[in-house]
């Protein structure tokens, strides 16, 4: 029986929306078992929402996540509008979709960079984060904020889009599309990347279905589910786009799914800008929201967001419930880690895109048998991982990128 080493990863970091703790049990270099512990930074938002008015809740819920801020507010406010029985103007719906897709681009480009960084491909990290600046500048121009857009309000949106802004968005999308094509080309032809990511972090179709994984993680395991297509909200039923799936079931196919989803987002944004009707931005909503309930599903960049709102005839909601996609996806992660190498742990955890890997985390290595202990932080684990793969012939630093 080989020696088992227990490695706790995490949990605490105030900058994360969902700090997690992973405990890995190693046999040699392989992960024999793993488990996840959650709930370290529970902020009591659902309780707090019951004590605030709908518009105050909107700004609170925007702070759920630093990336999917628009996803959460759109899901919450769409549910609240359904409870209040108001129909927002078409133009407001188009603007919500536009910001939502720009946010998806922002999130996926960020992820490409993080994934590159975790495998030691820092040129890709620098490049994709440079391109991400393009979309963040566009978001700042349209909404006034790079991260917290606050475009939604109860009954519509806060800002209009002018003809000049439209031109600028289209120009930026052209640049980003060209860059994305280049990244797809690299991902599909570069042997180092393929060697490093193929057959790593496997999640079979059956396990993904059994544990109800969602978003790009599930679609990379051949699950054809996308809320935008299945349960269309806003104006997604009027837009032409494809649901990207892949049957690879590994980290590589998660890269492919996210990269191709970027192309679909560009397509959606062009349609939104061409078809956007003129008209008002908001409708009046009643001060007192009736006793009613609504459940809204929303396809956030990382998977399905679901929000439930119940009114009680006052200015404040009776109950607000939100579930972010990472919680749905964490049930699958122990299956992806088990049987893999310690050196692949960073990229496998990063591949569910949990707002997790770009941060320092303390790791204590405990050798149970002889009581020796040492500490590794996330950076050290990453360095170990890159060095380990370098010795086996995968050196991402050697990949050359063109400007």
């Amino acid at each position, binding site marked *: 029986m080989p020696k088992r080493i227990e490695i706790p990863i995490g949990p605490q970091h105030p900058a994360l929306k969902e700090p997690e703790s992973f405990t890995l049990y190693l046999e040699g270099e392989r992960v024999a078992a793993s488990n996840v512990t959650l709930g370290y930074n529970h902020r009591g938002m659902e309780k707090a929402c019951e004590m605030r008015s709908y518009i105050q809740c909107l700004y609170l819920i925007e702070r759920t996540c630093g990336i999917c801020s628009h996803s959460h507010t759109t899901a919450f406010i769409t549910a609240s509008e359904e409870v209040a029985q108001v129909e927002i103007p078409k133009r407001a719906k188009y603007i919500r979709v536009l910001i939502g897709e720009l946010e998806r681009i922002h999130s996926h480009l960020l992820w490409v960079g993080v994934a590159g960084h975790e495998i030691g491909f820092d040129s890709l990290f620098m490049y994709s984060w440079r391109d991400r600046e393009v979309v963040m500048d566009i978001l700042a121009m349209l909404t006034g904020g790079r991260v917290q857009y606050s475009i939604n309000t109860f009954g519509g949106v806060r800002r209009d889009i002018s003809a000049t802004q439209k031109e600028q968005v289209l120009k930026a999308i052209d640049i980003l599309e060209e860059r994305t094509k280049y990244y797809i080309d690299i991902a599909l032809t570069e042997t180092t990347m393929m060697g490093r990511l193929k057959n790593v972090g496997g999640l079979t179709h059956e396990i993904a279905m059994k*544990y*109800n994984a969602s978003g790009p993680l599930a679609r990379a395991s051949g699950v054809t589910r996308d809320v935008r297509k299945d349960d269309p909200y806003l104006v997604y039923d009027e837009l032409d786009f494809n649901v990207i799936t892949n049957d690879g079931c590994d980290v590589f196919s998660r890269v492919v799914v996210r990269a191709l989803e970027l192309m679909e987002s560009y397509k959606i944004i062009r349609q939104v800008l061409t078809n956007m009707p003129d008209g008002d931005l908001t409708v009046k909503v009643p001060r007192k929201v009736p006793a009613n309930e609504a459940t809204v599903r929303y396809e956030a960049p990382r998977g399905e967001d679901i929000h439930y709102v119940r009114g009680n005839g006052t200015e404040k909601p009776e109950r607000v419930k939100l579930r972010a996609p990472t919680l749905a996806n964490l049930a699958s992660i122990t299956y992806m880690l088990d049987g893999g190498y310690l050196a692949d742990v960073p990229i496998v955890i990063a591949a569910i895109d949990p707002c997790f890997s770009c941060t320092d985390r303390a790791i204590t290595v405990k050798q149970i048998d002889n009581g020796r202990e040492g500490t590794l932080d996330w950076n050290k684990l990453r360095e170990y991982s890159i060095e380990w793969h370098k010795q086996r012939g995968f050196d991402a630093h050697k990949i050359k990128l063109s400007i």
Partner: protein
Amino acid sequence: MSNEEKIISELTQKFTFLNEKCVIVRPRRITVVVDREKALDVFKYLFSEQKFDFLSTIVGLDSGENLEFIYNINNKEGMLINVKVFAPKADAVIKSVLEVYAGATYYEKELEGMFGVKVDGLPAGRHYPLPENWPQDEHPLLKDWKPKDKELK
């Protein structure tokens, strides 16, 4: 007959006690109210026969006398059924749905911590999302629980 009506008619045919317990809220949204003793059979049927194989989350509510639990289950076509189960506060016990929906662990743990309901069949383990040293008799999402601000000046 719309898809929603078809699902409801097949459901009420199988479980006659669900007559007049199913409502179409809007396209792709159905609400079904089930007794807690019979909920598991309904879930099993919806999972295997109607292919409602995805549990999005479980919403818990404190509605005075009762605790209310809403299971958001959906299928590939984007149809969402809100299955409502009630449990009186005096006897707050529901059955776990883990044998049907394997991904439900965290959702059910959340109900235990936040509402103080006993989920029968849920394996013991760490709490979620409340910390391990949280008082056993305090359940923050109950309406009579108020945040204590003793640490605030």
